[in-house]
């Protein structure tokens, strides 16, 4: 009765192929448009964590170079405490923002300093205002951008470092557009946001465009998946537990079945 064993093996191979095929399919459906390279990220892999220094620098880049156009509405200042900012630092960061609040007892809206429980305010009152200031294009909220693009971190890095001073020969840039390798269609309405020494890093790191791009990418990767470190840590425990449990259950199963034949 060997046929059955052979069949089993064949089916397993078939299934493995199916799962692989799936992988290829998703990878392929993701591509389309620009070109993006690969980089090593601190948060990659099963033990990956967010590089704390990069997060701090990334926050600086976000505040200095992106926040004038992009919101980060799912992140509250207090969330920064989860990645090593002290309570005092968080308060100091929040206070620098003006938050619209109200109505007060008299029914009037008013403005006040930011508190740790506030979220990063969006730079524009609404979509129309955002478009009006950006030549008709809408700068998306960046809270989820790393999850909202295929291979998000590499894509974002590629986007920020993928600008050309001039479009390649033969490419006609539309009014108010910039040439970018990573962006699908290669024409983007966002002006190059990063310049060498565009921020003054608190830790003295040299602010090259690549450095800033990598740092803000790390920051936005955290903003998109703030649970990642907890998730991976718990995951390792859960999987180890399940493996041990499987082993024990296998032993029990062998024992229970020993008399059947």
């Amino acid at each position, binding site marked *: 009765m060997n*046929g059955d064993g052979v069949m089993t093996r*064949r089916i397993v191979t078939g299934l493995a192929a199916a799962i692989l095929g799936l992988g290829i*399919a998703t990878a392929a459906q993701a591509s389309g448009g620009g070109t993006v390279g690969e980089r090593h990220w601190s948060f990659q892999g099963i033990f990956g964590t967010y590089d704390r220094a990069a997060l701090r620098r990334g926050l600086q880049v976000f505040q200095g170079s992106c926040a004038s156009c992009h919101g980060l509405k799912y992140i509250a200042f207090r969330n920064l405490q989860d990645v090593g900012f002290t309570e005092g630092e968080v308060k100091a960061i929040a206070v620098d923002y003006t938050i619209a609040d109200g109505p007060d007892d008299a029914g009037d809206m008013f403005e006040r300093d930011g508190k740790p429980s506030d979220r990063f305010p969006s730079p524009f009152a609404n979509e129309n205002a955002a478009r009006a200031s950006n030549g008709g294009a809408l700068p998306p909220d960046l809270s989820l951008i790393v999850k909202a693009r295929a291979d998000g971190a590499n894509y974002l890095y590629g986007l920020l470092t993928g600008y050309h001073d001039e479009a390649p020969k033969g490419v006609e840039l539309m009014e108010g557009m910039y040439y970018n390798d990573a962006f699908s269609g290669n024409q983007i309405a966002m002006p190059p946001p990063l310049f060498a020494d565009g921020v003054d890093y608190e830790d003295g790191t040299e602010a090259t465009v690549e450095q800033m791009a990598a740092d803000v990418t790390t920051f936005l990767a955290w903003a*998109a998946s703030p649970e990642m470190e907890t998730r991976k840590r718990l995951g390792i425990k859960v999987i180890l537990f399940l493996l041990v449990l499987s082993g024990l259950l296998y032993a029990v199963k062998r024992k229970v079945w020993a008399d059947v034949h």
Partner: protein
Amino acid sequence: MAAPTMNNRMIKWFDDRLPIFTFMHHELHEYPTPKNLSYWWNFGSLAGIMLVVMIVTGIVLAMHYTADANLAFGSVERIMRDVNYGWLLRYIHSNGGSMFFIVVYIHVFRGLYYGSYKSPREVLWWLGIIILLLMMATAFMGYVLPWGQMSFWGATVITNLFSAIPLVGDSIVTWLWGGFSVDDPTLNRFFSLHYLLPFVIVGVVVLHLWALHVHGSNNPKGIDMKGPQDSIPFHPYYTVKDLFGAALFFVVYAVFIFFFPDYLGHPDNYIPANPLVTPAHIVPEWYFLPFYAVLRAFDFDIWFMPAKLLGVIAMFASILVLFVLPWLDTSRVRSGTFRPVFKWFFIILIIDCVVLGYVGAKAPNDPLIASQESVQAANDEYNACVAKADAAGKNGEEECDKPFFVQYVHLGQLTTAYYFFHFLLLLPILGRTERTLPLPTSISEPVTKGGAGAGQ
């Protein structure tokens, strides 16, 4: 079938009035099960476990979710960020959908290989297909709830299919939507139904198990149990085996939840739904891709039947054909183990389904073999030729040869045709012509002769 011995007087008192303990003892403990079931038989109980996992996580998610077109996306992000272990809950549920389908697809293909749909298990098989259809409806509506771009556009594309129905199609679509586009009313009814259908599934699963327990499980040899020497009690043999399988399965499931939680999803669903921006490629979840390929294989009209209607009919037919499978497969031998030719066609069918899934993920008119550049060049040449001929006062479209290149949709047509060929032509003929191997006289026979028993 002796009644269980009950030491607890309370239990005995209760059981005398409603013999639920006796019932459970019969069905879950004594229940005589073939002794030779392989690990492919684990997937039924795994499906049941997944159903429970989905219902439990779903109910808790619903406590935090807001079904409102303006708030749904944000409420899901709140679950991910602010609810304690909300991310875990959501990732268990979202990946659970995929896991449930993997398990059920394996379960179904197990049935296809071992002929579990054949007499006397036709009704059991039907109930399974009904479960599959209900699962698909549930999963489709669930995917709409986070109200991302793929939610919205997936819902738009799929509900729009009903407009292919002659005469009343458009009215039906408006009725489904509760308006003139996918919008808040659509989201609300989908949420309501997404909550309801899993409990309908529970009901059908009960019937499925009832039907199963009338004749008992099929087995890798596909022959009936002939006496007590062929069976073992369900408990503890299969309870422990199912538990072991479940633990292993949960390892795979956990790898997805904790390390690749978004791998099976689409990045566009992290962009809030926007009726004004259509995504470049609208693709359903992976488990619908083969059906999506069948749907889109029809890019031509036949007589008065528009391509869209044909596609919809073919898509539903690809599942409905399973209902008549017990009569299409004319072979008297259940198990593929003893059907040397069928075996190969079974493998081809699996490959066919995988290729269909692959095609479903692609833009139908992308070139399959030729490079994008060479196609572009050929098209440019054609357009230039047309322009020149038109300028010369001739009919350019007649003068110039439109370049032909093989596209994904062609592969989709081939594999769709093969899918129906397998069920509608091959199985009826094969059952009559195939020379099957001699069947063992009983389940325990080869074992007592010292052969390697299949699975355990």
